[in-house]
């Protein structure tokens, strides 16, 4: 048992080592590295589409990562590099699309759907019939008491 858990822990280290090796780019300073890491998490892999280039190991994604690294090392800012990609591949390459007239619906859509849902929810709640609490008159109460007493006798 002890050996087995030790093995699992060792294997975990092995896998983290492997993934570290894939992204083996070197940077002059921590700032460059963080710009690079932010970018590869925001750029879309165009051949796989639902992955960022950080997630993807597709050949084009590898080349885009290499290009991103190259531009970072040239001292380009995050904005400049993301503009570089957008200029060539369009807004689609960004996972976070800009807010402009073509994307208003995209940004507002979820809230519109939320409000439609709230509207119907409130409507349904209001229409729900309120159950009246049973009100007993004094007559009814004494009759009920009589009935109960006769039963227990």
């Amino acid at each position, binding site marked *: 048992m002890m050996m087995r858990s030790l093995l699992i822990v060792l294997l975990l280290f092995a896998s983290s080592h492997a993934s570290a090796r894939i992204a083996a780019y070197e940077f002059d300073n921590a700032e460059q590295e963080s710009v690079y890491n932010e970018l590869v998490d925001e750029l879309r892999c165009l051949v796989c589409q639902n992955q960022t280039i950080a997630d993807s190991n597709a050949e*084009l994604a590898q*080349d885009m990562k290499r290009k991103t690294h190259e531009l970072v090392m040239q001292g380009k800012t995050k904005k400049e590099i993301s503009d570089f990609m957008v200029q060539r591949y369009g807004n689609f390459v960004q996972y976070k699309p800009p807010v402009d007239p073509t994307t208003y619906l995209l940004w507002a859509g979820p809230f519109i759907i939320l409000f439609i849902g709230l509207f119907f929810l409130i409507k349904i709640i209001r229409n729900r019939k309120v159950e009246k609490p049973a009100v007993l008159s004094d007559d009814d109460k004494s009759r009920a008491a009589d009935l109960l007493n006769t039963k227990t006798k």
Partner: protein
Amino acid sequence: MNKAAIPLILFLLMAGLFLFVLQKINTGEYDPRDVPSELIDQKVPEFDLVNLLDANDTVKSSDYLGKPWLLNVWGTWCAQCWKEHPYLMFLARQGVPIVGINWRDDMAEARSMLNTEGNPFVETGFDPQSDAVMELGVYGAPETFLIDAQGMIKVKHKGEMTPRVWEEKFKPFF
């Protein structure tokens, strides 16, 4: 109206919509993987690649100013590139200048394809690391650009070059 019919009607509407979109995909009118072209009416990006057939020579986009030319991105790994190859040969024989970019390929295999199938390209740049390909915003092969005499990209076609595509999109420029 019977309330029970509402889910059925919703289902039929959805099914109708899916069928409509599927048909558009099948006829090629709509491609969900399509990304709008960004480079139309812009200057062709500068690239400078090693010549596939001559390691001492380079292929530059600036070498072709002055007349319209085609730029074709291909690779031996790409089935549609093999399919369109005979038609590119035909166009080359008609005197259409085609510059090739050999993308992420094995140099020996690419050379042997041009040897056995014929070489429709005036020159072919060797691009194993997507340098020119990224400049051109290409993410799949084959892809063909038309660049006019002023060096502006006028047409970008993704996928196989066929007689129909040529007639519709490219021929008016020649």
